[in-house]
């Protein structure tokens, strides 16, 4: 049974008020809480390692899979390996997320490795949110990894969000793109206090005509620190772009290193990176519309992370 605290976490990471529609598998404190499959979407427990295998039948259109993880048992470190097979020609949304509530002194953590095989012509939207709450002293640690293989003409859109409360995060995203496929990644990370978050990304444009756009938005408050590394490798005629923006407030620190590697003369790769305080002209504009200094900052950050 899900208690009130679980429901709060579920709302924060998956925007769910109750059990979701369609296929789902909810994991609580390292164990299966509840599961539901549909005619086209099958979810089974992986018998080789801790995790699940989600198989989406070819041609499945407009269905969704929710796989939230809830941690509320102090001292637990949950490691999970989930595999997703998105069948050819399907068009689906997968919502994952991890909510940690830490009420005690021991660290709590979640390490989730999500591997995707997106078959020919399939479209996948993947939404992942990480959130931690609770006033316990235990550090809340999250290390999400995604590995995506895009077959010919597959299209994947990933929204990766770490909205707050996570003390330590090592985020890894890896992708290999086949011919004609496209991958769009939007990553948003906010840290505060003494938190630390690293994001490492490697996108390999292996197929001709593949394209990828990676956008990273970071807000670094308090004494927190974020590092962002992204490498795009072009092996064929392809298109790739990295855009990383960081807003630093208070005493935050940031290192941003976008890297481009072209192994083909027709590769088109570019990047933009910026680190800075909130722009003065944005603040002044909002204040001239009647907002206080603080309200203006909030509105700019909210928009930036939208």
């Amino acid at each position: 049974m899900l208690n009130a605290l679980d429901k709060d976490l579920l709302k924060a990471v998956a925007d769910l008020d109750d059990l979701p529609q369609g296929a789902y598998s909810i994991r609580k404190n390292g164990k299966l809480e509840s599961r539901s499959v549909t005619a086209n979407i099958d979810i089974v427990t992986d018998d080789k390692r801790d995790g699940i295998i989600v198989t989406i039948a070819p041609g499945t259109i407009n269905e969704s899979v929710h796989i939230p993880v809830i941690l509320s048992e102090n001292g637990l470190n949950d490691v999970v390996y989930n595999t997703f097979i998105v069948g050819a020609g399907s068009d689906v949304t997968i919502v994952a997320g991890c909510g940690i509530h830490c009420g005690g002194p021991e660290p709590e953590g979640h390490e989730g490795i999500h591997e995707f095989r997106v078959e020919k012509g399939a479209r996948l939207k993947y939404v992942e949110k990480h959130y931690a709450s609770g006033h316990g002293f235990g550090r809340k640690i999250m290390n999400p990894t995604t590995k995506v293989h895009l077959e010919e003409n597959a299209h994947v859109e990933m929204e990766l969000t770490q909205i707050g409360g996570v003390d330590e995060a090592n985020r890894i995203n890896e992708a290999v793109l086949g011919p004609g496929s496209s991958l769009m990644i939007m990553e948003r990370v906010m840290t505060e206090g003494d938190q630390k978050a690293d994001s490492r990304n490697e996108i390999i444009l292996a197929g001709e005509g593949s394209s990828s756009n990676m956008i990273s938005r970071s807000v670094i408050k308090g004494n927190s620190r974020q590092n962002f590394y992204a490498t795009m490798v072009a092996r064929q005629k392809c298109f790739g772009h990295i855009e990383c923006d960081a807003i630093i407030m208070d005493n935050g620190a940031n290192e941003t290193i976008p890297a481009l590697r072209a192994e083909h003369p027709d590769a088109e790769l570019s990047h933009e990176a910026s680190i800075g305080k909130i722009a003065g002209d944005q603040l002044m504009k909002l204040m001239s519309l009647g907002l206080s200094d603080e309200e203006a900052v909030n509105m700019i950050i909210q928009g930036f992370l939208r």
Partner: protein
Amino acid sequence: MLELKNLSFSVAEKNENGEEKRRDIIDEMDFTFEAGKFYAITGPNGSGKTTLSRLIMGINQPSAGSIFFEGKDITGMTITERATAGISYSFQQPARFKGVTFRDLLSVAARTENEEKLLEIVRRVGICPLSFLDKPVDSTLSGGEIKKIELATTIARNPKLAIYDEPDTGIDLWTIMPMVNLLKKEQIDHKTTTIVVSHNRSFLDVADDILIVDHGKLRYHGNLKNALPMLNDFRICSFNPCPEGEQDAQCFR
């Protein structure tokens, strides 16, 4: 309704010998704007028009002098306080955000999220299509589009004093006259004291009063007809300013 008293804004500058010097961008300016009137401010590039506007909005702090709004000294007030008091400013170079939409700005400006009310403002402004509402106000907007949005946010505040800093830059030929008529209509319908900084003859034509600024000084205040000699031949500006109270630009000759 707005009084500038001995208003100066100076910055430190290095001269050829590397010595620090003060340069007056706005130089001891005295002027009283009357309630409900339409003023056009013009003058050469770099003469101080934007700086003057920003001093009034509180974005820049004067190095000397004071500003009175409706009889109250606002020199020490923040931007927010001046906005709340009824002053609004359309930036010459509007800020571009990330993820903030026209709807967001309009909601803040009009203090409402009500869809009907927002649509009503967009219709009243007229020059922004309804499809603009959910556009992000970011670097993808064209130069003209962002100026239209900027102007709309000023109108949405229903200010007592509206300052538009070159609202016509980047605006297409088909929108200039509607924009001029809009600001004129706002002045009349809402008794908005209006200051338009512009080099565009269309704004000068509808203004009640023309102000010419040069080298941080007010060189002329009066009607358009008498300003024409100066506007047609700006070399005149390099002559000494007219004696106090002189209304005819011919005095420059």
